[in-house]
């Protein structure tokens, strides 16, 4: 038996079916339109209006403390882990300092029915009359666009309107304050904000003793940290007070007990160190909620290694018999529901397009290695895996870290849960991410302690939002001599000539590379300007007070260069990689190698969106494609990567970090695809681009083997440059069922690990996907049929097969 397996592994089924009534009661409140809560914006704005003369970190801390002291608080009748940023239902905050001005126009333009969120008349008035007038002209979006060179504007914004993205290059530095990050929750649990207050106070006194005055940046920083820590204390005490009052008038004795327990808990944490598992979770939640008041992070602030920093509290409570596994799971489920209740509301059209459905990604991870290089899996890792909430509602964004020593039984359970959960949780590969960090200079022990998405708290820094590059637009520039569909008639790229005159494929490829080069240079320029503007625009006193380097050096993360920090460079996210690889492969195959069509005719077909060119469109779609272990096609991907990686290596940002590549998970490939014309891989105008490093939809005809092999070849010879890239794998549910299915998935995961991929997100194909396949069989190819001895020589077999699979899926659901 697996040593890491808890004694009660057999009782998982009972844990599983207990379906805590509390959680069942709370789930329905997650449906419905989220509400935009303006209190944070209002209190923040009022505070800023009063503190115009103060240095930014102090202003930000004052504003945050103001929010914590005055924002309305709510305790609902099923709440166990308290702290809500809004009333009943889902809610989101408004951050006017980023791109807020847009909201005024947007609300006037849209009728309420179309809006992806609800906002009351009164709140809207407060926004237009009080909040927006204050920020007008000084939001981050306005500042950035004012500083960008004129030549860059149309690459980012359409028709000169800075709230309308052109989706050629897309900066995300002004839709959020910062890249995703994970707070050092362990510090909060271990020392409490009191400990942090004391540390700041001590350092402040020492500076004063050395004769430094109030204008000293470090003194300003420590004052900010103390102010925020105290704000945390007040925020929790307000909850304790409210819970006690509610208990006094509560008729139900069980709930009264619960409320008194809540009061006791909030009277203690997060100011004091946590004494129990429940207090630890409560302190963690208060901290991340306050972080949402402070800033909007990446895909939202992450949870980090929950099974590690919560484990000591869990173990002690279990040993002392004060908690059961069921109770611990319920507490965690409450935390997940709190996370799901906060919605990332995007005020602008662009924001809601790239985060469709208000998606947010609170990185959370379990398993992996300890700092000492041992396997970190513990009983809590197993327990976290047992909750259905993450796969049911998609929150939090749960990842399991996999390494060579991941216990067999744990890996198996992970795979079982993936099959049950429609593909979730996602996986991260320690074997790639850890060496990738040490290469950058992170010490090995710290690298092993990385949180989701390769962040190392207390060691790394750099927070400017990434820039997204629509690679399909770059391909269009190569085809149309510097013009592209989203850019209209204006030539936004290089003048690379008429492709009909190119003698060889290499000529075309070089034209593409020239366009790509220029796009990358433009991105680096935008990021440089963004970085320059940060110190005068952003401060993050809470985040900084939980960052060792900031505390040691007395500096806010946004204010300058931290000594001894490992800095990221600006991130470039490539969207539509496979669409472009396949298009290049199709051009090479059809125009230059097989000479089945002239470049002129292909361009005409693209111009008409294949209208009247049905057979040509099929030829394009059936040309060799990425995702099938076709080395000549995969080599095109490698060449693109090589160019991008080399350009990154030649540059350095003002903090000393090299630019990096990432592949984002959000729905940008849909938004960007909408604006791109037909592409030579048979994709029609407006259809989504490919996602991440995954093959184009329907292009992978060899099953998971082909997808993994092709994706692993992208980095050949550039392993050091492996970047945040989640490989998405569509898995046919008919194959991954039963014990054999679990074994196959375990084998697949092991291969994925050894082929040195970065991350893996599986999706068990669902009903709607299958029905789509049935109706457009030649543009899907991913449903494998497997039976003993059966050859799926004709991959998209018959209606019968689909019906069969659909039938078995229905049977599974009911």
């Amino acid at each position, binding site marked *: 038996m697996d040593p890491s397996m808890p004694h009660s592994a057999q009782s998982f089924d009972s844990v599983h079916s207990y379906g805590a009534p509390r959680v069942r009661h709370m789930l329905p409140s997650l449906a419905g339109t989220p509400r935009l809560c303006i209190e944070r914006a209002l209190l923040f704005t009022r505070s800023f209006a009063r503190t115009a003369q103060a240095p930014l970190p102090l202003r930000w801390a004052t504003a945050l403390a103001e929010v914590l002291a005055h924002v309305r608080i709510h305790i609902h009748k099923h709440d166990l882990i308290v702290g809500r940023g809004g009333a009943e239902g889902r809610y989101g905050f408004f951050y006017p300092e980023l791109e807020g001005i847009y909201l005024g126009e947007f609300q006037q333009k849209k009728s309420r029915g179309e809006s992806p969120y609800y906002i009351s008349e009164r709140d809207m008035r407060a926004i237009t009359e009080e909040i927006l007038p204050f920020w007008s002209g000084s939001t981050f979006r306005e500042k950035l666009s004012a500083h960008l060179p004129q030549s860059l504007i149309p690459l980012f914004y359409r028709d000169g309107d800075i709230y309308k993205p052109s989706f050629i290059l897309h900066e995300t530095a002004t839709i959020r304050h910062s890249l995703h990050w994970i707070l050092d929750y362990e510090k909060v649990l271990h020392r409490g904000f009191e400990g942090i207050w004391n540390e700041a106070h001590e350092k402040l006194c020492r500076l004063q003793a050395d004769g430094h005055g109030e204008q000293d940046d470090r003194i300003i920083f420590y004052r900010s940290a103390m102010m925020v820590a105290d704000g945390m204390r007040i925020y929790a005490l307000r909850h304790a007070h409210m819970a006690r009052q509610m208990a006094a008038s509560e008729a139900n004795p069980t709930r009264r007990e619960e409320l008194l327990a809540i009061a006791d808990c909030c009277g203690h944490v997060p100011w004091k160190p946590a004494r129990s598992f429940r207090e630890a979770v409560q302190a963690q939640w208060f901290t991340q909620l306050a972080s949402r008041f402070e800033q909007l992070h990446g895909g939202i602030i992450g949870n980090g290694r929950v099974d590690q920093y919560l484990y000591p509290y869990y173990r002690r409570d279990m040993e002392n018999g004060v908690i059961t596994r069921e109770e611990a799971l319920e507490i965690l489920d409450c935390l997940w529901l709190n996370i799901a209740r906060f919605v990332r509301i995007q005020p602008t059209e662009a924001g809601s397009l790239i985060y469709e459905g208000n998606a947010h990604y609170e990185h959370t991870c379990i398993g992996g290695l300890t700092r000492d290089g041992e396997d970190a899996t513990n009983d809590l890792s197993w327990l976290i895996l047992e909750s259905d909430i993450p796969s049911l509602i998609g929150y939090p964004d749960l990842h399991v870290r996999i390494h060579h020593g991941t216990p067999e039984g744990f890996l198996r359970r992970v795979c079982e849960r993936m099959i049950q959960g429609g593909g979730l949780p996602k996986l991260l590969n320690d074997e790639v991410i850890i060496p990738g960090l040490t290469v950058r200079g992170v010490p090995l022990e710290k690298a092993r302690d990385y949180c989701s998405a390769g962040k190392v708290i207390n060691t790394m820094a750099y927070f400017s939002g990434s820039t997204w590059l629509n690679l399909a637009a770059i391909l269009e520039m190569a085809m149309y001599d510097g013009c592209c569909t989203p850019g209209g008639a204006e030539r936004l790229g290089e003048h690379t000539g008429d492709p009909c005159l190119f003698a060889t494929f290499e000529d075309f490829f070089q034209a593409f590379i020239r366009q790509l080069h220029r796009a990358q240079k433009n991105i680096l320029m935008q990021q440089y300007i963004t970085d320059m503007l940060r110190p005068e625009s952003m401060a993050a006193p809470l985040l900084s007070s939980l960052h060792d380097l900031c505390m040691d050096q007395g500096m806010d993360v946004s204010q300058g260069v931290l000594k001894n920090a490992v800095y990221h460079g600006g991130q470039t996210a490539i969207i539509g990689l496979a669409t472009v690889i396949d298009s290049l492969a199709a051009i090479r195959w059809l125009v230059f190698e097989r000479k089945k069509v002239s470049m002129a005719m292909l361009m005409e077909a693209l111009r008409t969106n294949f209208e009247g060119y*049905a057979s040509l469109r099929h030829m394009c779609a059936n040309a060799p494609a990425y995702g099938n272990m076709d080395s000549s096609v995969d080599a095109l991907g490698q060449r693109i990567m090589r160019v991008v990686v080399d350009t990154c290596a030649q540059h350095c940002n003002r903090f000393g970090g090299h630019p990096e590549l990432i592949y984002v998970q959000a729905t940008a490939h849909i938004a960007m695809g909408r604006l791109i014309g037909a592409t030579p891989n048979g994709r029609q105008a407006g259809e989504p681009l490919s996602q991440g490093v995954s093959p184009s939809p329907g292009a992978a005809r060899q099953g998971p*083997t082909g997808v993994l092999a092709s994706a692993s070849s992208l980095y050949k010879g550039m392993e050091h440059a492996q970047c945040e890239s989640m490989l998405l794998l569509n898995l046919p549910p008919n194959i991954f069922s039963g014990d*054999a299915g679990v074994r196959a998935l375990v084998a697949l995961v092991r291969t994925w690990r050894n082929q040195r991929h970065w991350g893996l997100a599986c999706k068990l194909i669902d009903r709607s996907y299958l029905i789509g396949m049935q109706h457009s069989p030649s543009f899907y190819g991913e449903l494998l049929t497997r*039976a003993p001895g059966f050859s799926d020589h004709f991959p998209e077999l018959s209606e*019968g097969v689909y019906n069969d699979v659909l039938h078995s899926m229905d049977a599974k659901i009911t």
Partner: protein
Amino acid sequence: MNNMNSQPPVALISHIQAFCLDDGPGIRTTVFMKGCPLRCSWCFNPECFSFSQETSLRQERCLGVDVCGICRNVCPEKCLYATASGTIRIDRALCGNCGLCADHCPTMALSTVGRDMPLEEVKKAIVRNRDFYLHSGGGVTLGGGEPLARPAFAATLAGLVKSHGIHLAVETCGYFDMDDAAVRHTLEQTDLLHFDIKHLDRGKHKAFTGVDNIRIMDNLRVLPRDFPDLPIVAHCAIIPGFNDSEAAVRRMGQFAKSIPTVCDFRLIPYSPLGAPKYQYLGKEFLMGYALPPSPERMRVLERCLEATFRT
């Protein structure tokens, strides 16, 4: 290895399929070799009947002569004609299976089945999945068709697989020449043999598969003597109206039990998965109306196997 000359042996491969989960242990790559001495009426790989290239036509993918019609222009035999709806049909009596139409078909409605694949290409397709074999306890399976019907090629391929340290399974219908040196050489290198048992009744066997079962049974009897270390998994597809009676399964179970190296016996329910392929190839599918045996029926037959084979 006495009959291997310098000329590399060739055989038609219909398909190399990655990520196979049912053709032996672990994740496997299966090489489907074209051509089979049997004509089982239920076979779901009819593209592997013939030992020569064939042209398949998937009507539903055809764009029609109004839109496309390229195939008709390139066909040297003029054997393609349009139906009333405009889609293409093949006059198979005239078709020489030259494959020109398939080369030009944009939608792959027309395709050529079977290719003389250079050994080097087969090797590449096999070896590139080695990671998957390693981590799943998988390997390569030779299937078809009947791989031992092209023994020289099978033996070379088997040697190649083993020289890379990859687990090798062979799926056979049992109808092969046991005295052939290349067959023996293939079996020597095989790690696991999937051996089909269809029916013990000679007459029925002949009627449904086209051949007598004497040779098959004899081969199975001889295997433990000549290859005592080669584990055999018996496979039996349960075909309605052919071998789905309890008596038939019991007899097969008893027979398999008498062969010491048969370590397992798998009953596989009939599947109509291959039905559309017959249509693509212009062949008649005789099992058209048969329904797969019910799970209940399979359980009954499993019990017959319990009582005979697994005692």
